[in-house]
């Protein structure tokens, strides 16, 4: 009997193809968008952490305990000693790790008309790209020359825009030196960086250690050693790896603090946890809209066929047969719609992961706070959500068909045939 019911159900789905198509389309759009939105929300988290790792915080940063205590004021003291040996020891303990020194400092950048606060970094141009992706972000101009003829620096694109400067222009920097006296000097802008991290784009200034020592003092210390670890497939593992590596470094070196990305991003991650309930609400609303659409179209489909149910009952089908027949129909539509939803959702996720959603093109210069928007909003593959969405679509369709079918199955043949 089951085989017969499946055969009838299949024929009914094809016979009422318009209704079937509408029901399946509602499922496809509803569940497909659910998969896409979930991917985008997960992608925002990964993008934020990626941006921190690739441009500022690295997988972890090594500094002295004294510097760690005062790090928010960016002192030019409490530097690391034996930096080369320390880097070698880290490489020995963490064979896949790469390192580069960085010394952040506060400065003011001026075009002689305006003066804006800037976040400066003394970097080693030859090793910086082993840890950070700054070199890939040149918008105009070039990376540091191997043998510069003039004092050169790189600056963030928005800082350049705010000061009305372009590559090869000169910029006046002023900052406190290592001995607390003030210094000011002019630098040629070798390149302008379009950095996804909005804060660096707005205020970032990068100069070589050679220039920084002339500007800030010959005794300028290396205050942080940035460490890059391989990028794992998911965020949880990335955070876990950075914590474990930081623990190894601290265990091997007394008086050294290793600040993992998990610790550096602590504020963001706490904020993300707070936001999670709102994100869940968005997902729930999308799912609810999809669910209501599915239930509505299946209900309409079943109620419009009550007379047909009366005929089937007249042919001798029991109410259990009727219920099973419509359940199978609902299941078939659910399978078709959910499969299409999976395909649509996957296509959208693939597009967002591969190309990024060019949200910045629509909202030029949109500041999304800690979420870097420069490269477009990228989604993240979330297989668990896809499976859940597929099963939800099938189940919603099945239940939606079963409830009115059960009610219709209980009607007398004459009542069903008279049903309007």
């Amino acid at each position: 009997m089951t085989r017969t019911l499946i055969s009838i159900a299949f024929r009914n789905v094809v016979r009422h193809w318009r209704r079937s198509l509408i029901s399946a389309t509602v499922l496809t759009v509803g569940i497909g968008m659910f998969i896409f939105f979930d991917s985008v929300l997960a992608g925002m988290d990964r993008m934020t952490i990626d941006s921190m790792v690739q441009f500022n915080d690295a997988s972890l940063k090594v500094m002295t305990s004294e510097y760690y205590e005062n790090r928010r004021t960016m002192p030019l003291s409490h530097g690391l000693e034996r930096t080369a040996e320390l880097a070698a020891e880290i490489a020995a303990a963490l064979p896949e790790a790469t390192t580069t020194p960085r010394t952040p400092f506060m400065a003011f950048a001026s075009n002689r008309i305006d003066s804006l606060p800037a976040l400066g970094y003394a970097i080693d141009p030859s090793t910086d790209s082993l840890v950070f992706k700054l070199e890939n972000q040149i918008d105009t101009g070039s990376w540091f020359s191997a043998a510069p003829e003039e004092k050169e620096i790189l600056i963030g694109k928005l800082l350049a825009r705010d000061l009305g400067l372009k590559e090869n222009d000169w910029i006046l920097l002023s900052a406190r030196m290592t001995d607390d006296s003030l210094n000011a000097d002019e630098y040629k802008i070798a390149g302008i960086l379009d950095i996804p991290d909005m804060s660096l784009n707005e205020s970032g200034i990068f100069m070589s250690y050679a220039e920084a020592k002339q500007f800030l003092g010959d005794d300028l210390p290396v205050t942080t050693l940035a460490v890059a670890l391989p990028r794992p497939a998911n965020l949880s593992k990335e955070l876990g790896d950075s914590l474990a590596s930081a623990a190894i470094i601290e265990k091997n070196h007394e008086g050294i603090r290793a600040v993992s990305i998990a610790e550096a991003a602590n504020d963001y991650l706490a904020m993300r946890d707070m936001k999670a309930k709102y994100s869940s609400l968005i997902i729930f609303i999308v799912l609810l809209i999809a669910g209501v659409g599915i239930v509505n179209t299946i209900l309409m489909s079943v109620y419009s066929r009550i007379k047909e149910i009366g005929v089937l009952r007249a042919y001798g089908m029991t109410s259990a047969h009727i219920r099973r027949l419509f359940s199978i129909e609902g299941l078939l539509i659910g399978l078709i719609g959910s499969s299409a939803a999976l395909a649509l959702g996957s296509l959208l996720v693939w597009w967002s992961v591969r190309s990024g959603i060019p949200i910045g093109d629509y909202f030029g210069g949109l500041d999304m706070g800690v979420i870097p928007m420069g490269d477009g909003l990228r989604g993240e593959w979330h297989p668990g959500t896809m499976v859940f969405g597929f099963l939800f679509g099938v189940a919603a369709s099945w239940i939606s068909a079963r409830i009115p079918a059960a009610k219709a199955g209980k009607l007398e043949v004459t009542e069903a045939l008279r049903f309007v």
Partner: protein
Amino acid sequence: MKIAQRALIVFLATIFSLGLGIATISAQTLSAEEILTRVDANQVYSAIYYEGRMEIVSGARVKVKTMKAWAEGEDKAFIEFTNPEDRGTKMLRLKDELWMYFPSERDTVKISGAMLRQGIMGSDFSYQDAMSSEELSELYTASISGSEILEGRDCHILELRSGASGVHYPRRKLWVDKEHFTILRGELYAKSGTLLKVLRVLGTLSLQGRRFPSVVEYADQLKKNSKTLLTMDSIVINPSIDPGRFSLQAFSR
């Protein structure tokens, strides 16, 4: 540390708070160091109270801040802003430490490190400028580079240089009134020789036998059309000040 008789420097007006010196000695006979010592001598009071008005000019925009200020010795100063936008904002300086209190957030922030270079309330005075209280003669080696008539006053031009650690402006150029030993103009330079700030004394008052700079202009040379004008009124020299004024508890009063 000098004895209590040695005075306070007027917090915001530290760099240009000047006194009247009666030039009984012929200025021509003084060396650069002696001139600087007399300038320092004019800058000392044991305590002061004043009500101030700060006009912050940035291009066509002018912001006005008003304040009450108390200071005692060279290590203690307290400012309370009284203009409507900033009413209740307070600053306390104790030796080398500086705090600000923001009433809307009910938050006390210690100003330190790189934050010291930022302008106070958006003005051309940096927190670091407000922290300077040492005598110029202690920090700099002076030389006389010439004479000039400035605003109708005959002035020595002093070149000050310092190689010492912790001196914010390694080089200064001062125009010192030959009669009163007050600074009428100052140029503050970075280590590289770049001019960072220019101060001008636009008005003075005679108080207790000294000439006090009551109107001072301070201009950040890294910005165009930017200057801050500080006018001091209701000045009281050596007032009686509640010792509790110079404490963090005073923020919550």
